């Protein structure tokens, strides 16, 4: 059953890697504009939950519904198209194409979606400015700091106006100051664009930017008890 008003939901998700269970009947839902932090210890299955919800990985069983459509039965091409059009992603590291400049990196999802280069780069430039990294637009990822790189990645994730932003440990490779700055900019930008954010983290400080927290443990999602 899809929770009322949610844009994305997962129900009874099971996923094994070989004989190792990653998800064991996980349920999840998120509403438009909502920021949900997915917490949990290392190896608990939170990244796998994100991958299943984003249509990157097909669960062994269970249902993922996005905007009224069942994702698990969609062919790969349609899931890819959905990710291009409606989703955005921020990962911990290694996500920027090293050969492209920061501007080209941000414009990449737009261009993959069919936008003309100039239009895509104009939008990208706006987002770089919004994330306060417009001064590095002509540089390559190897020439900028980790914090700047992560802000470029956030700009890239949001440039296509996604309806859902998936962020997997977005500050995991940053120091606390840079982490705070990235999270502030990410959360503000997401709220401005009314994008839902699935925020996977193991840091409660990062989770504090969310509207709601869920915890993944042994492949199951647990909502915190009301009032706690």
């Amino acid at each position, binding site marked *: 059953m899809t929770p009322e008003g949610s844009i994305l939901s997962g129900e009874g998700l099971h996923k094994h*890697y070989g004989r190792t269970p990653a998800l064991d009947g996980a349920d999840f839902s998120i509403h438009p504009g909502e920021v949900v932090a997915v917490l949990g210890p*290392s*190896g608990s299955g939170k*990244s*796998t939950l994100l*991958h299943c919800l*984003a249509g*990157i*990985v097909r669960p062994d069983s269970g249902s993922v519904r996005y905007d009224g459509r069942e994702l698990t039965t969609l062919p790969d*091409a349609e*899931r*890819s*198209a*959905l*990710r*291009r*059009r409606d*989703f955005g*992603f921020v*990962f*911990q590291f*290694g*996500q920027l*194409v*090293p*050969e*492209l400049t920061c501007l*080209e990196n941000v414009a*990449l*999802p737009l*261009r*993959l979606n069919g936008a003309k*280069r100039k239009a895509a780069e104009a939008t990208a430039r706006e987002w770089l400015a919004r994330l306060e990294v417009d001064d590095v637009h002509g540089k*390559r990822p190897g020439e900028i700091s980790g914090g700047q790189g992560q802000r470029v990645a956030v700009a890239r994730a949001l440039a296509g106006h996604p309806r859902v932003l998936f962020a*997997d440990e977005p500050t995991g490779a940053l120091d606390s100051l840079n982490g705070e700055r990235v999270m502030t900019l990410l959360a503000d930008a997401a709220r401005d664009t009314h994008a839902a954010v699935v925020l996977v983290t193991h840091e409660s400080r990062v989770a504090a930017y969310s509207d709601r927290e869920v915890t993944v443990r042994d492949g199951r999602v647990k909502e915190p008890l009301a009032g706690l």
Partner: protein
Amino acid sequence: MTLLDTRGTGNRAGGPPHRPPGGPAGWLRDLALGARFAVTGGREGWFRTALSAVGVGIGVAVLLLAASAPTLLNAWHGREKARENLGQLHEPRASDRTLRYAQADTSFHGDAVRGRLVRPDGAHPPVPPGLRRLPGPGEMVVSPALRDLLAEPGSGPLRDRLDYKVVGTIGDSGLLGPQELTFVAGMDDRSAGESYRIDRFGKTFDPQPPSARLVLLIVLACVVLLMPVMVFVGTAVRFGSDRREARLAALRLVGADIPTTRRIAAGEAVVGAGLGLAVGLLIFLVGRQAAGAVTLWDVNVFPADVLPAPALAALIAVLVPAVAVGVTLFAQRSVTAEPLGVVREAPVRRRRIVWRLVLPLTGLALLSSLVWEPDPVWFRAVRLGVGSALLLLGITALLPWLVEAVVRRLHGGPVPWQLAVRRLQLSGAAANRAVSGITVAVAGAIALHMVFTTFQAGFAEAYAKSAARPVIELSGSAADAQRTRDALATLRRTPGVTWAHGTIDALAGRAGDRGTRGADGHLSADSATVVVGDCAELRHRAPIGSCRDGDVFVTEPRNGTGRAPGSVRPGARLNLNPPDGYGEAGPARPWTVPDSARRVTAVRHPGEDLPGDVLATPGALSPALLRAPEMKLRVGYDKAQETAAVERIRTAAFHANPGMRELSAIDNPHDRQYAGVRTAVYVGAVVVLLLIGAGLIVSTVEQLRERRRLLSVLNAYGTRRSTMGWSILWQTAIPVVLGLALAVTAGVGLGTVLLTTTETGVRVDWPVVASVTGLGAGVILLVTALSLPPLWRMMRPDGLRTE
């Protein structure tokens, strides 16, 4: 310091500090550790080592083949020398240990058949290598290839011609190669005039030095063949350098210093090179078994002949591992393994063209100087080899600059194009290295093809011109006029023959002229040609008018006979045994041209012999008086049935006199020679292109593996597989297309210079240019196609998992 040097740290037991071995012992330990890394990296490590070994192995095999060329040619020439005797300066007297020997070469559908006739004078004649005994009259021993040819259904005319009884097979020691067509037959009276007496086998003089053209081709072929292989060896030993660097960084973390990491890297490279030596030896040993099936430039040898010269083989065994280690260390010159990772010290510098032009321009200058300086062959060969090598090496130096200059200017375009261009802008070195091999191979192949095509076409035109008239000229010894008449009669009866004429020709000197001896010891004198024939035959040499047996004519030259008018006049005294040869002059055989001899006007027809100075009928001059009288026959045939008629004429001529020599332009031997070499060059180019294609595939897949996580992220973004596929296509295509453009320019340029040095008209083999560049395009598609499955495998979400 060596690996795990704990100098100054002491040991846990509190005893004196433990010092690991330094100096050579420590170095050896580092090298051994590197060697262990080469084989203990699991499946991946083995794959890398195996790849290096295959690359080095192919290089070693080619080098061993090249090193076998001198031995191979020596063995080939040695067997020819051992089995032949072209005549002794002082012909021995007949004895129990002598034999009469004659040549009886023929050809069958363009294949040369070497024939020798023998007739022992006694019971113990010398026997040529490969034979147990000399065949008797009516018998012959044949080479295995001739035996097979004779057994073929279409060889009827040849069986008719060589109507001897086959009594044995010639052994390998009597053959130049397994495909040689040769026979030794017992001599009968038909060949007695052609024969000479010998008392041993074995030539006493050395063959002529190779022609400038041949030297040019051999040197250039070696340069063209070896350079791409060297480039490939360079590429092969760099496979997996990223992982090697990561491992060295880890070693630095546990205390290894920089020289130690270099030694460990060298040790790792030595294993690949050592295995490569073994693989190369194996490829060489297996490959040489096919030597018997290959005929290149009429040279066909036995597998055992393909044996590298020991000194060169030792050099290869030492140099190849050294080069492999050198290349590995050279590749690391700008890389320092630090404990937390690898630091690339070389700043990104724009490549400059100035010094890159030095190599090709020097090569071009060396080659151009060959045009106007007539030097000795060896000096030309050195300049040719160095010039060609510098020009081709220069291409490899120019290519990175060209790729960088072009790629730097590229921008915009669709996403795949942008990804590819940016990738090349950031690090195009690996692609450049691999493509430089393609460039050298294609440039070399185009240049060689240009040279071969031009030579081949030149011969083809000349032969076509000569063969326009359906005529075969035959010559052989003629003891008397009747044999010539008989030969003509036999030929006229042969189906397909339209006409046949012939005379007996010989040289005569001035009476009293003892001749002059040249610097080489050869005795010669001014001579005139005496032609003996029936009136009907003489009419084909000059318009003699009325004639009957006993008449003599002297010719007065007209248009371009090349002789001063009136050199032989009626009443002139001639010597029919003029001094000629290396020995002493024989006794004079005087003969006076009758005063009654009539003067006739000689007209030389294009393509025909000189008409002769004295034309005599047999009644006036007996051929028996002449020195080395030779029947000269001209036979016309029906062009419509050329193939069959020509073989029948050859058979008729062989039966008239097995020693009859043919002079015709029907079979163009050069066509086959050049076609064979062109095919070999083409096959070589294809193999090199495939080799380099394999290198490109491996380096592309390596790049993909290094970018596994990025590919997974791009997949998460919904990037289409086709987008990444096209990006790989462009990434391969851009340098290859630029490399091919450079190769075509350099190849045509090199070919033009080479042809100019040999004073031959320049002719570009455009179909070959098109096909070789097409092959290059095929390599691009192949590399892309084979890179797609790993690409798609790596675009799976697995790369996003960190736990």
